[in-house]
């Protein structure tokens, strides 16, 4: 399995201010590899540099240094463009066109042969669930519909690699589910998907590997399964009896009380001590459930750690 995307030391610095004196590094030198056929999640809080990275890869902005290769070619090589698709964040398309006209235009630009275009466009529209809306002018489209058009134009020309920037943004749960299904299909078709998001549950569900970005720097890269394993070390204890609250809190766990019931998330290693505390206080244990590890936990952990490190560095 080859490396489809290789990012080597790519970084970007902007000069801001009226006299262009202040420098802001939007992206620190980035080293990243994405393998063929995987769904790669690019995570991070807002402003972390995710969109900057994508703009650099797409050639919309130019790197201050470093480089990248896509499908073995330099990322700025025009030949690359024919084999990749891109969905920008909150896409905006030519208002005056209908969905069909827009996709036909993009098909023309992507070099889809003339005879093929119409059929391909119809198929794409049906695939993203806009089969009936082809003739409608884009200015009448809802946000969710625009997002789907965006996806359609990204895969229209049968690209090997698809780049998506916040593909679920602005969608209702149904829309999000549909996009997730589509991304899964793309993988099944053998394409590589690189998508950025700050919705971690989506990443958790879809991605093989993720990178977490904060303040322009990659905090961690790895398989999702590994990350989840690292955090699923807690259990949730549910009991009845207010007296035991103090004892559990003494173990360092936060307790939520509602009426007579109380629950707390306790690290697995402290479970025995917690149960002892409850029994000692005369509380009635109701249930002990393993906490479902989420990527969010891992994310918060990592980002929190990097923030602390940054604060320390500044101090």
């Amino acid at each position, binding site marked *: 399995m080859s490396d489809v995307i290789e990012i080597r030391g790519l970084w970007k610095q902007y000069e801001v201010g009226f006299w262009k004196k202040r420098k802001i590094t939007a992206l620190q030198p980035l080293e990243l590899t994405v393998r063929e056929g995987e769904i790669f999640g690019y995570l991070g809080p807002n402003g972390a540099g995710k969109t900057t990275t994508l*703009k650099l890869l*797409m*050639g*919309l*902005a*130019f790197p201050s240094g470093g480089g990248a290769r896509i499908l073995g070619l330099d990322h700025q090589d*025009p*030949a690359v*463009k*024919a084999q*990749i*698709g*891109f*969905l*920008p964040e909150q*896409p*905006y*398309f*030519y208002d*005056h*066109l209908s969905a069909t006209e827009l996709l036909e*235009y*993009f098909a*023309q*630009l*992507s*070099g889809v042969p003339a005879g093929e275009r119409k059929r391909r466009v119809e198929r794409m529209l049906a695939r993203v669930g806009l089969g009936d809306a082809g003739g409608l002018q884009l200015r009448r489209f809802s946000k969710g519909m625009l997002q789907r058009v*965006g996806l359609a*134009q*990204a895969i229209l*020309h049968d690209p090997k690699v698809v*780049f998506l920037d916040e593909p679920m943004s602005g969608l209702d749960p149904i829309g999000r589910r549909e996009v997730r299904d589509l991304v899964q299909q793309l993988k099944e078709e053998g394409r590589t998907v690189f998508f950025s998001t700050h919705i971690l549950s989506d990443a958790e569900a879809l991605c093989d590997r993720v990178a977490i970005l904060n303040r322009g720097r990659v905090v961690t890269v790895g398989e999702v399964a590994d990350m989840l394993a690292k955090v699923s070390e807690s259990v949730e204890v549910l009991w009845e009896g207010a007296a035991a609250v103090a004892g559990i809190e003494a173990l360092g766990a936060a307790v939520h009380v509602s009426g007579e019931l109380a629950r707390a998330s306790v690290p697995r290693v402290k479970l025995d001590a917690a149960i002892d505390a409850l029994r000692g206080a005369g509380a009635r244990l109701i249930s002990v459930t393993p906490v479902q590890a989420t990527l969010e936990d891992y994310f918060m952990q990592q980002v929190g750690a990097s923030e602390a490190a940054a604060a320390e560095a500044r101090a």
Partner: protein
Amino acid sequence: MTPLPFIAYNTYREAVRDRVLYNLIVFALLMVGSAVLFGQISIGIERQVVINLGLAAITLFGVAIAIFIGIGLVSKEIDRRTLYTVLSRPVRRWEFVLGKFLGLSFTLVVNTFFMGLGFFAAVFYVCGGVHRGDARLLAAIYFIVLELLIVTALAMLFSTFSSTLLSAVLALAFFIVGTFAEDLRGFAQMVTGPAHWVALGVAYLVPNFASLNVASSVAHDQPVAAHLVLANTGYVLCYSAVALAVAVLVFEYRNLK
């Protein structure tokens, strides 16, 4: 197959759907109005007035369209980010610039063509038929198209690097100074020192519209020399090439927001 023609056609389509061609209605009304007016009164120089009025209107409408649409050609796409999905495709930046230019130019040619029809209709009506000098009117209209090409190229150039307001001001400034470029060169000959070089520099920097304004002479049935047509065509090609080359260079290196 280069995507240039597709970009050009899309630009043309956008202009048309933007109802820009509705200006033809206003122009038609103007022509009809003046023709009817002269049907009622006779002042002896109806032909001159209709020709001057018509050509001036064609020029002004054309320049207005060239500027209003031209200044947004690139900047609007950058602001609205419609460019993102275009440039992620195998479209080279210079192809984008040229495609947009050709699209707007084509729009203006079509617009001028229809205006030309209305114009000739008005002239025939007022003069009661075809005259010997009418073929020269075609030359005048051709020169107007050339003028519009320059204005379009300039507006597009400004669009690649500045906001719409500044672009509009610059385009208008170049148009006005360009109208007097010949006088500026004459002035440069009269003075010495730094004023001479500044005037000369500006005079060669702005477009030279004086030689493209043959409205007065065709109104008086003066011929338009063939080598003037040739020289003007060559000039406009060169000047537009300069403007477009700069536009291509600016856009090639621009980081999109």
